[in-house]
């Protein structure tokens, strides 16, 4: 499902170098390094409290890390360390090349604004001013996430949980980001809705060639979505590699425990 070409000399889209986030004396995540290439989807798994969401938020600029670098290959200036860039520049990145899909859709949506408005807001943030075009794009994206455009003027508070999550994805992807951070995107949804969402995410990743970092505790989700996998425990990355290699032939004791603990369906 990846769109990367596997060329040796390709520039990584993002390089994370020795990223560390402490909560006082306690470790959030420690010394995490990896390169993410264009079109790659990376999964981060681990039990709750393992530091996976902390890592995601530190990479996305929601928490300031204690040390380390998050170098992103920006369109205008090439690789830039986003931890040291100015706040307005980082916010601009967050509205354009980056997208963040929250576990709870209500954290990523404006609940009192219409569905169309939620999608249109991001377009206006990057300079969209023509109301008719914004509305057309909003309607187009509602269709792509399988929400009827007759719901365009309804508020997300009137939507089901699965619809809210799909609306959040539409809102995030409408500006054509190159990197999407996702925190448990299918968590809390029932399985039939999860399947729809997985199918949708996979086709969007392939069609738009975007890269994604997905935090989840669901190994079945990463097997279907992620090219690569990182396993975290107590704030450290204990194992990383090709997704099916990590799941089929886990090397670390913790990963072996994790993989062997999954109930067979």
């Amino acid at each position, binding site marked *: 499902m990846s769109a990367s070409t596997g060329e040796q000399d390709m520039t990584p889209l993002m390089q994370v170098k020795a990223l560390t986030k402490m909560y006082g004396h306690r470790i959030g995540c420690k010394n995490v390094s990896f390169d993410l290439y264009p079109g790659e989807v990376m999964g981060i798994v681990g039990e709750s409290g393992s530091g996976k969401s902390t890592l995601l938020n530190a990479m996305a600029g929601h928490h300031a890390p204690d040390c380390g670098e998050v170098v992103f290959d920006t369109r205008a200036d090439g690789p830039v360390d986003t931890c040291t860039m100015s706040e307005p520049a980082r916010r601009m990145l967050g509205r354009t090349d980056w997208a963040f899909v929250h576990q709870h859709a209500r954290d990523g949506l404006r609940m009192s604004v219409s569905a169309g408005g939620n999608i249109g807001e991001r377009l206006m943030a990057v300079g969209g001013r023509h109301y008719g075009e914004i509305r057309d794009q909003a309607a187009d994206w509602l269709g792509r996430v399988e929400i009827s455009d007759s719901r365009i003027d309804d508020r997300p508070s009137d939507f089901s949980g699965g619809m809210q999550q799909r609306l959040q994805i539409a809102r995030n992807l409408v500006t054509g980001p190159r990197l999407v951070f996702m925190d448990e995107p299918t968590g809390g949804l029932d399985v039939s809705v999860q399947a729809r969402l997985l199918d949708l995410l996979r086709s969007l990743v392939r069609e738009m060639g975007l890269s994604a970092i997905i935090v989840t505790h669901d190994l079945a989700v990463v097997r279907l979505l992620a090219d*690569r996998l990182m396993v975290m425990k107590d704030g450290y990355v204990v194992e990383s590699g090709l997704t099916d290699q990590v799941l089929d032939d886990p090397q670390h004791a913790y990963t072996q425990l994790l993989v062997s603990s999954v109930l067979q369906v």
Partner: protein
Amino acid sequence: MIELENVSKSFTLHNQGGAVIPVMERVNLTVAPGECVGLVGASGAGKSTLMRLIYGNYLAAAGRVMVGDLDVAQAAPRQIIALRRETLGYVSQFLRVVPRVAALDVVAEPLLAVGTSQAVARDKAASLLAELNIPERLWSLSPTTFSGGEQQRVNIARGFAYDYPALLLDEPTASLDAKNRATVLRLVEGAKARGAAIIGIFHDEATRDQVCDRFVDVSVFSPQVAA
């Protein structure tokens, strides 16, 4: 095309007292383009393990696993992903798909991944599904609801949609009737004729003798029991 050199494999079970189980040693195997090599050996001898070592979902403990000019034992994940997209196909015994995706799209996906247009990919997928006797009314349904034999045929169609230069076939004919088995054999022959290097596991002796140019008994790779 495929060349294994002094490959060994062991499993370390950390949660069972760190027990180390050696499963294969000194594996040497070469498969040329246009050649089909059959793996034989008793159940549990390591036929599937050997395939997974080549496909990269098992990590070799030592040795080189060359597919084309990439050493799978040392390659970065994205190199293996590119290899699987462009060079190395694998028909496993089980179909693993995203629920809700239509059979036709499941089969067309490997073609779309290498940049083939929707129309061409779907045409190829349709002709393969027809050849493998999957009724057209099922094409728009998710194969998760299909019978075991139908799922296996969808899996085969997917494996042969794109012309991989190297192919791993793990019991592709296991639960098929004579007619479908003949179709699979024709597909394998076709792949050989266009120069694909193939490693296969076939339980049925007649099938095996028909498509394989030679056999490798994997039990010779079992670690020697210490005296």
